[in-house]
Every structure is written in C-alpha cells, then in structure tokens.
C-alpha cells in the first residue's frame, strides 16, 4: 500500500528533554492510524512535526513518498490539517473561522459559503454560521475546529486527542465524523489518544508511544488482542484482577482472585498473574445461563451511570465488575440498584497482561 506519511529515525529534543526518540513509522493512505500513549509520551510533538508546524531535531519525513524539507513544507501544510487538543479559534464568527483556510486557498465567495455549510452539517452544527465561535460550549468549539479542517478537504487529517474532556454526545458526533471522513472521502487520519477504547474501535493501525519511543506497532487487532504490559500500564483498564493461577487439564487455567472468585482464562500458566475483562465483553443476565461461556458469577448492581445510548453498571460479585450494556437492555431488564444479576463471559475474553 502507498504511504501517506513515513518518518525515519525522528528525534525531537527540547534542551535536555527528549520528546521523541528515534521514531519510525509508516501510515498508509486512506487509513486511520492511532498513536496511543499517556500524557507526556510525545504524541502531540509527533503530530506537530507531521503537520509541518514543528521541526524535528533529526530524522526524515516523507509525505506521499517525497522527502519533506523547507521547500516542500508548504505542501504538507496545504494538504494536511491538524486539529489541536486545546481548541484554538479566531475571535470571530463560526463562518469566518471556517472560511479562513478556504480564503487562503483562493476559493470564491460562493464556494466558501457552500463548503462552510457542508462542513457544519457534517459536525451537526447546521445554522451556526453567524454564532460567535468563542462563545460556544467546549464540545461545540471542538466540533467547529474539526469543521475548519473538514472544509479544506485535505487528504491528511491530524487529530490530537479529539475527544478529551468531552461529554458522550459530543464524543459520538466527533467519532462518527472521523470514521465518515475516512470512509467517504478516503482521508488519511492520524489520531493521538490515550483512550484505548477509541483507538480500538475507530482505527486500522495503532502505535504505542511511551516516553517518546514506539514500543509496539501493528494492526489494531494485534495490539489490543493481546495487550502488552506497556499498554496496560497506562490504558484505563477496568475489571483488573490479580491472583494465583492453576493450570487445568483442559489446557486452560483458573485464577483465584479472592473472595471466592475463580476466573477461567485461556492460558497455560501457574503463579501470580494479572488479568482484565473488558466491560463490553461481559453479558449481563437476570437468570443463570446455560452457555458455552466458562465464567459465570452472581452479583448485585451497585452503581449505574448513564452514557447516553449506553449504560455502565458496577456489579458486586465478591469483587466489583464494570459492565457496559445498551440503554435498551437496561430498560428491558428493569434493573435497579440492588437487582440480582449474573455476569457471564468466555474464557477467551479474559486477557492476561
């Protein structure tokens, strides 16, 4: 596959601090590529260098196969756009904010108006043209920022933590827009995030960045199918338990995590292990289930939080589990605090780190 962006031996130093340490990566055209890592791992610096607004200390970058230097920097800036984590907007109307980049590219007044309208409808802000950009809510401002980039229809879109600190409604609009622009326009997207869930659901390939170094890179399945210790060290994992593992004759193991809970996992390992189960991999049932799933525990609902179309429940089953179900299931099951429920999950849903 043709590469959109390729960086070789990229290093960036700020005085004594090394923000990026010999980074090598290749992003294919038309893909969504995620850089995942904790705060301060160098994600933003990497994106800024790719966007052509920061210079690396050493290393090379190729855009569409052409080496990027001072002369071709304007090409990257014209064909790639970055949306910053801290929303930056010009102190004027939404219309003029979005029109800025189009004016630089010499579009006619009519074209500009049409493209502004188009971009606003993509981020579900129809009719916001005359509104004062800086007076909008945080989520709306972030969507305007995204619209500013979308209106330019650039082949490369760089997103720095596009949904950090936003509410579920704004998050889902932004996530839908990202996958739409990639699917419908074939835009290459490079996104920095510390949200593992987002990286997993939206993207084709993922790089794990820790302390300025790429620790792991591969398809999303490769990275998240078997999360490494590096990934688990910062990703906000839920349902993490530790305990003593005993091998079974069937070739799996049972881990005693305390309080009478014995979790079966597809590993052949004895001794102390740490495991996790994703909230969305757990089936919630009102009655005991006869199924192929190897793990079933009885518990009571201890907490409910509404995430819009989804509901997250805390279930006390000796140990506390977080479970995610749809709002519809939640309503149909008539769940309340204290309701008795059964947690069911397959041994293969248990990940050992």
């Amino acid at each position, binding site marked *: 596959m043709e590469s959109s962006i390729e960086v070789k031996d990229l290093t960036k130093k700020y005085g004594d601090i090394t923000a990026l340490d010999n980074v090598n990566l290749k992003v294919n055209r038309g893909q969504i590529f995620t850089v995942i890592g904790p705060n301060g791992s160098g994600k933003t610096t990497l994106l800024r260098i790719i966007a*052509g607004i920061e210079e690396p200390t050493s290393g090379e970058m190729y855009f569409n196969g052409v080496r990027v230097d001072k002369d071709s920097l304007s090409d990257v*800036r014209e064909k790639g756009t970055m949306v*910053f984590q*801290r929303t930056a907007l*010009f102190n004027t*109307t939404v219309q003029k904010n979005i029109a800025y980049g189009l004016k630089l590219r010499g579009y006619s007044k009519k074209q500009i108006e049409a493209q502004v309208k188009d971009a606003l409808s993509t981020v579900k802000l129809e009719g916001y043209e005359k509104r004062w950009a800086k007076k909008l809510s945080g989520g709306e401002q972030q969507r305007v920022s995204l619209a500013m*980039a979308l209106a330019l229809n650039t082949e490369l879109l760089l997103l720095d933590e596009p949904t950090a600190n936003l509410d579920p409604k704004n998050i889902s609009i932004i996530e839908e827009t990202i996958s739409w622009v990639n699917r419908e326009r074939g835009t290459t997207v490079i996104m920095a995030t510390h949200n593992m869930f987002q990286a997993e659901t939206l993207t084709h390939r993922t790089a794990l960045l820790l302390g300025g170094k790429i620790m792991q890179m591969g398809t999303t399945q490769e990275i998240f199918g078997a999360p490494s210790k590096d990934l688990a060290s910062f990703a906000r994992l839920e349902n993490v338990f530790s305990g003593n593992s005993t091998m079974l004759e069937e070739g799996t193991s049972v881990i005693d995590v305390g309080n009478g809970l014995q979790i079966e996992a597809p590993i052949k390992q004895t001794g102390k292990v740490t495991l996790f189960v994703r909230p969305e991999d757990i089936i919630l049932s009102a009655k005991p289930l006869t199924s192929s799933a190897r793990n079933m525990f009885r518990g009571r609902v201890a907490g409910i939080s509404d995430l819009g179309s989804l509901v997250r429940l805390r279930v006390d089953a000796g140990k506390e589990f977080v479970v995610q179900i749809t709002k519809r299931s939640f309503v149909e099951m008539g769940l309340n605090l204290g309701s008795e429920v059964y947690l069911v999950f397959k041994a293969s849903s248990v990940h050992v780190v």
Partner: protein
Amino acid sequence: METILEITLRSIAISGTATLLSASWGVPIGILLGLERFRGRFIVKGLFNALLGLPTVTLGLLLYLVLSRAGPLGFLHLLYTPLAISIGQSILITPIMVSFVTNSIESVEPEIKDLAKTLGASETQASLAVLRETKSGFLLAITASFSRAIAELGIALMLGRNLVGKTRVLTTFIALTTDTGDFAPAIALGVILLMIVSAVSLTINFLQRHDSWSRA
C-alpha cells in the same frame, strides 16, 4: 483674544501629531517585541516598561537643552513651536505605545499562529492572523497614548511656553490662568479636557465591540 475652540483644536492637533509620530515607530517596535524571539528581548521590554513613568519635566528639560539655541539641534529653531511639543510628547508616550502593543500580542493564545499555519498560512500570513486578533490592543495603545499626551503639562510648558495664538494648549492655559486667579475659563477648559479624554475612551470602547474581522 483667541477663542476656547482654537485652544482646544490646537491641543488636539499637537497631541494627535505626537500620537501619529509615536505610532510610526512605537507600533513596529511593539510588534517586533511581541512576535519575535531574540536575544535581549526581555531587556528591551523591561526598558520600555521602566520608562512608562517618565517624568514630563525631566524629558522637557532634556529636550529644552537639545533644542535651545546653544543646543545640538538649536539650528532647527524648533523651540517654542507646536512641533517641538509634538516631538516631546511623542517621545513621552512611546513606552506606552510599545508596551501596550507588545502585551496585547503576547496575550493572544500561542495556538493561533499554529492554527493559521496548519490551515495553510505562510509564516507572514500566520503573523498577520495573530495581529488581527490584537486589533483592540492597538486601539487601546493609541488611545492611552493620546490621552497621556493631551493631558501632560511639563513638556508643553517648557518647550511651548504658552505663547498666545501659537503654542497655547489646554493644559498650559489652565495652569497659567489658575495662577492669575482667573478661575472661570480655567474650569471651562478643565471640563473640555476631561470631555476629550473621556470621549476618546468611549469611542474606543464602542469600536472594540465590533468584529475585528469585519473588513477581513
């Protein structure tokens, strides 16, 4: 006897000229200090900040010595002319002009320049985008400078000498008629001076409410 209107208009003309003169070098210096990062920038900034409280009589004395017949620029015969007052006031208000412009540029979010760049702007276009965000800062610099110029006494007195029909301005007239015990015209001119300064501030306040992008 010259009318109050004449004195008022002369004051506005002299201090207006001083503001224009000062802006012609103060604004570029302010922009340079605000946008560029060079060695010694903080020292230059500190110098202008320190000069904000420059005493008018000290500056007046200094310029008197330079412009007087025996002084280095005495051959220009500028002493006791309106232009001498304008020049003196323009130097007086330069630190105000520079500091206001620099501070307003620095108060623009640093992301604005990056934003312009990633949307396709060149280095120059990105700097212009930053300046556009500071338009109200420029207006404030101009008004604060003009108000300081028209309200000062020391320079107008020492370099103008309150010559009737020539260099008499609002502040020198007020000071000298009060001296002779003639309070009525002094109070009238005092009120006019106050009105000019307030009117300028109000106008700027009104302009600031307008979209700085309206003519973009």
